[in-house]
């Protein structure tokens, strides 16, 4: 019988099996006890793809497939969970990840031989997740959407102890759908964020935390430290891939009340923090000034030389996103 990631992590949390515990702690990139330790950052620059995409057309399918394929992910026979960013009902704004990008990712992973591809999300404000997905165009774009979708707010959960947490969280209940997957694919919208500066692939993981347990919004994360909670969630899922929908992003008072911003790009890679840092540069934000990126990778690993850009160079697609105070004075790249 195949051992699931949830079983391994659950074993670690209970601390009953030394072997399982060691495996899981190495997965988490942490050691037992003591202060939080950042997983080592590879000296080989992380590959980050920047692909131009002028609009939500059928070309997106080919662009996403080629982008995922060039990262040579081993997804044959694997269980993939695609995590979009679904926030609000308004389909005419740039709040939610466009369903075309999500469906393109869904098709790409199927084409590359994944055994199972699911789409899963747990919105932080609205309880009616399926209605929200419907309003955002997911039912119209993804055939048999209900069959492949899991509402992470209402999924069954298990408790995970966070060894040496960065935030004030000691443990977290997480949905089985994401604990059981082999690869978590974060597909956020490229947006500014009034509390975090920017919300991209790492911040998107807040949607993994079940509202059914913690409520709406997931306030436990705010009290534990927003930036630190983002990093703890990021460390809990070392097998990730990110595809950021920056075709039309959001600037200003994001993540809800901002205005659409045409950036015309998709940004992707396996090193999710590197993807986020690259998105920041495209948005005219200094990634070294985004707290969760600084904690996750260290300021010294956020310079341009730490990443190997594939496709378009950042300078060719850079388009400064409008920032609200106090971010205007603090995170703008000079």
């Amino acid at each position, binding site marked *: 019988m195949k051992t699931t990631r949830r079983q391994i992590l659950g074993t670690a949390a209970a601390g009953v099996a030394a072997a399982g515990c060691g495996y899981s702690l190495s997965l988490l990139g942490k050691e037992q006890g003591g202060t939080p330790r950042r997983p080592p950052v590879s000296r080989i620059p992380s590959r980050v793809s920047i692909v131009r995409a002028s609009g939500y057309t059928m070309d997106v399918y080919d662009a996403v497939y080629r982008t995922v394929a060039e990262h040579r992910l081993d997804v044959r026979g694997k269980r993939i969970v695609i995590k979009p960013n679904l926030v609000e009902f308004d389909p005419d704004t740039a709040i939610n990840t466009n369903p075309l990008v999500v469906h393109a990712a869904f098709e790409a992973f199927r084409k590359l031989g994944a055994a199972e591809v699911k789409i899963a999300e747990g919105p932080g*404000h*609205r*309880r*009616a*997740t*399926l*209605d929200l997905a419907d*309003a955002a165009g997911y039912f119209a774009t993804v055939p048999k959407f209900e069959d492949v979708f899991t*509402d992470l707010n*209402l*999924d*069954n*959960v*298990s*408790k995970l102890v966070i060894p040496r947490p960065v935030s004030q969280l000691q443990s977290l*209940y997480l949905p089985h759908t994401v604990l059981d997957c082999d690869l978590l694919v974060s597909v956020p919208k490229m947006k500014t964020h*009034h509390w975090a500066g920017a919300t991209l692939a790492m911040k998107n993981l807040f949607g993994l935390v079940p509202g*059914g*347990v*913690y*409520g*709406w*919004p997931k*306030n*436990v994360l*705010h*009290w534990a430290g927003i930036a630190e909670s983002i990093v703890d969630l990021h460390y809990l899922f070392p097998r990730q891939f990110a595809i950021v929908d920056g075709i039309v992003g959001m600037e200003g*008072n994001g993540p809800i*009340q901002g205005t659409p911003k045409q950036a015309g790009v998709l940004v992707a890679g396996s090193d999710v923090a590197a993807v986020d840092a690259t998105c920041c540069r495209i948005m005219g934000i200094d990634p070294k000034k985004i707290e969760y990126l600084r904690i996750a990778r260290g300021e010294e690993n956020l310079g341009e030389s730490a990443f190997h850009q594939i496709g378009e160079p950042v300078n060719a697609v850079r388009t400064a996103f409008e920032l*609200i105070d106090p971010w205007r004075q603090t995170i703008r790249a000079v």
Partner: protein
Amino acid sequence: MTDWRYKQNRDGGWAYNQGCSWTEPTAFVLLAQIATKIDRPSFEAGMKFLRSTQRSDGGWSPHPEVTESTWVTALAALMPEEAIGADRVKQALEWLEGQTGRESTWSFEFQQWIHGIREKNPEGWPWFPNTAAWVIPTSLGILAFERGLTHGENRSLRGRVNQARQFLFARMCADGGWNHGANRALGRDGDSYPETTGIALLALHGASRAPMNINDAAAIERAKQAARRHLAVCKTAEGTAWLRMGLAAHGEVSPLQFPPVSRTTVDAALTAISSGFCNPLLS
């Protein structure tokens, strides 16, 4: 009429869709049966599930894997005493009495005081212990405590109900409705949601029966207007049900012409409650 037995788990509870029984859908299905028609074996099995999942601290957790009592305790406290047990309800109310939004705690207010902020926050209820109070758990807390007050006056319960009502008034959005409770962020007004507007209006049912100051009465009128606006365009079952319940609690019956699709057990149960001959959430 919904056949609740069809989706009932062997342990007597209900899932949101499928899988493990959760406290919230179980409680709402039982309330839906009270509002419409009780299927005795199904109802008894559901009550047995709830009785068996009460925690030693008197509260309920949302899911069997969760080892903390949370906001769902208010739902369990709304069950009829003769069905769930008077002692269990008493313990649940005592647990709820010990819970408050973190922003109303002495330690938080002291921290604020050090920073020169002398704001007193009315006490509401959080979703999860040791976090801030929000509109939905506060509304359910009011309804549970009002039920408790039907057994006799209690200064402590009455005080919390009054505080929680003030919490709701303070968190009202500029448009007259409610979102989860963040009515202003960074100096900008937040928009209200249908479900939170409906449940807050329902929870203020008792306020409109008691003598009110002119500001609170005007706020309820604005809330009713917001609820009507939301109801005219609402497409979710949960939002529609809470709006109808909220308006009905203030004397406005809103016929349901095109029922929205119920996506979850909670949606179906709330739709049934909002169409029932009585509202078991009210006392």
